[in-house]
């Protein structure tokens, strides 16, 4: 049995219940578990304070007499210990349950569960019938995720190795602003200190474990920063015309805004964002697809094919 847990609970009770500052001597005398030399009691107490702070419980330090700071005392203010939420509705609790369940088996499953349990303690019944029975999943098992979250919360720098396009990895130092997920991939966005630009990193391309460095509260997240905007797909600005064999190129047909069928071929109009991405799809379809326009896309495909012929010849 861990006496540490009991000591932390008793310390919390004592500091919460007191109406005035408690001195260390009073704490050591009334709470079981502070034993040994004065020095070691002192160290235990300091560690306990830190541990409670990690749980989000703030111990205030004050003096009895504002004019003489000879003796300091400690207390926990109940209004800071307790949540400011008044309560949640039955429907809200059902939604929170879904949000919490989404984490099952993923990295933040225990905070998600304790959050739910705290909110259930308002004594409200959750109205599961009022929400659709969807089972959303947050799929992230990346061990770096918790460090990234902690760095964003405490505004500390992050350092990691990141794989660049040519497959080599480079050290990055980042002020992390936000995280997000889209289509199964997770992203971190922040100020890349080496490049002095806001950059987005895919978590599965981080080749090392992520470490925090330096002090906390070292930066501010820009007022206008919005992770949603970072991950939003840009509107396609470009349009390609492709000639596609009848009954072929199904994935391209799905993206087409217009399809005009001729005898053996169809003419497809496809809006796109990145030339390289669309070219990869076109090349996948071998001789079932020909680029009509734009010229740059047509040239890119031709050059790629020539390179393939050359290297495999």
């Amino acid at each position, binding site marked *: 049995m861990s006496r540490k847990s009991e000591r932390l*609970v008793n310390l919390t009770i004592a500091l919460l219940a007191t109406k005035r500052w408690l001195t260390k001597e009073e704490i050591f005398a*009334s709470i079981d578990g502070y034993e040994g030399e004065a020095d070691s009691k002192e160290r235990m107490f300091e560690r306990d304070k830190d541990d409670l702070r990690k749980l989000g419980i703030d111990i205030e330090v004050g003096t009895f007499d504002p004019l003489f700071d000879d003796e300091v005392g400690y207390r926990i203010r109940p209004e800071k210990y307790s949540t400011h939420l008044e309560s949640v509705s039955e429907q809200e609790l059902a939604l929170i349950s879904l949000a919490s369940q989404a984490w099952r088996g993923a990295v933040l499953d225990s905070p998600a569960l*304790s959050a739910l349990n705290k909110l259930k303690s308002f004594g409200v019944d959750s109205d599961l019938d009022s929400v659709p029975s969807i089972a959303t999943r947050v799929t992230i098992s990346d061990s770096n995720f918790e460090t990234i979250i902690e760095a964003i919360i405490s505004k500390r720098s992050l350092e990691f190795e990141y794989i660049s396009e040519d497959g080599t990895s480079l050290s990055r130092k980042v002020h992390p602003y936000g995280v997000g997920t889209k289509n199964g991939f997770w992203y971190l966005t922040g100020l890349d200190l080496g490049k002095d630009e806001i950059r987005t990193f895919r978590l599965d391309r981080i080749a090392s474990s992520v470490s925090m460095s330096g002090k906390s509260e070292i930066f501010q997240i820009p007022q206008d920063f919005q992770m949603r905007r970072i991950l939003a797909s840009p509107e396609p600005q470009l349009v390609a015309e492709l000639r596609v064999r009848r009954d072929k190129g199904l994935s391209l047909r799905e993206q087409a805004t217009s399809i005009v069928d001729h005898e053996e071929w169809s003419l497809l109009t496809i809006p796109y964002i990145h030339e390289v991405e669309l070219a990869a799809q076109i090349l996948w379809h071998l001789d079932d697809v020909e680029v009509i326009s734009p010229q740059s896309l047509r040239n890119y495909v031709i050059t790629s094919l020539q390179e393939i012929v050359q290297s495999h010849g």
Partner: protein
Amino acid sequence: MAKRTTPIERAARMLDLVPFISSHQGIPIRELAESFNISVEELASDLNALWMCGDSRFDLIDLEFESGYVSIRNADTLNRVRSLNQQELISLAIGLDMIEKQIGDTRVDLVAVISNLKRKLTPHFLHIVDASPRKSELIFSTLNSALASRQRVSIEYFSASEDRISERIISPLNITQENGYEFVIAFCQLAQSQRTFRIDRISKAEIVGSDTPSLSVEQTKTGPSMISAKAHSNARRIHETFGISHSSSQAEMQIPIYNPQWMIRTTLSLAGSLEVTSPHQIRAAVLTRANEALALYG
């Protein structure tokens, strides 16, 4: 529960048990353990420890749980809902955002409730998280429930290497994840054997009833064949395409493949950055296909 609970986590749980029990007086001990995702033994040890806590000069916390039902008295000091810490808040912010996007247009009323809830609960995280579910989330949950209830599913599957959509009846055997993609391994009635389907390529999935033949996940009978290839550029893209670890970036890569057609198309779509060196048949096929495509351009 695989992770061992630290004394700090246990202390947090003990603190949170107090308001939880107070608002659920007489809760069955098993239900309480389930709510906190711990065993009944762990819970009993938490409760025993909590029983001894309190201000010894006055009264200790009074817990009753011998009967199998838990109630609590004399715990006024701790009977408060603790503020949510940052990790708890961010987990809810991400979960709620995902649910909001999944519900989308189907329940505009709920989306409004979620937006309000997020503003009330996690105002500081509104701008720094953004979570949307995979597009295949609904298909996934259909397959998952079919797997759990051993039912057959009718699917529409797009095979990219054959450039064809087929309708199949499958009996899901397992769901796996690799390289950021999710797969369902299933017995396929059409092929009369076990097949692996990429879930994001399934465009429709509908449960068609039980009567699943009893099957177990067997190893794929034919192993992969090995391809040797060289990356001329775009190494990251190539590594991710084949699921090869980035560290193994030697000049020559060994790539396990199951389907030669897939390999040929993939090589072309990599736009000249990959060179297949062996086996000869695949290298020759890549050359032929590239020449055929090039012929379109005169």
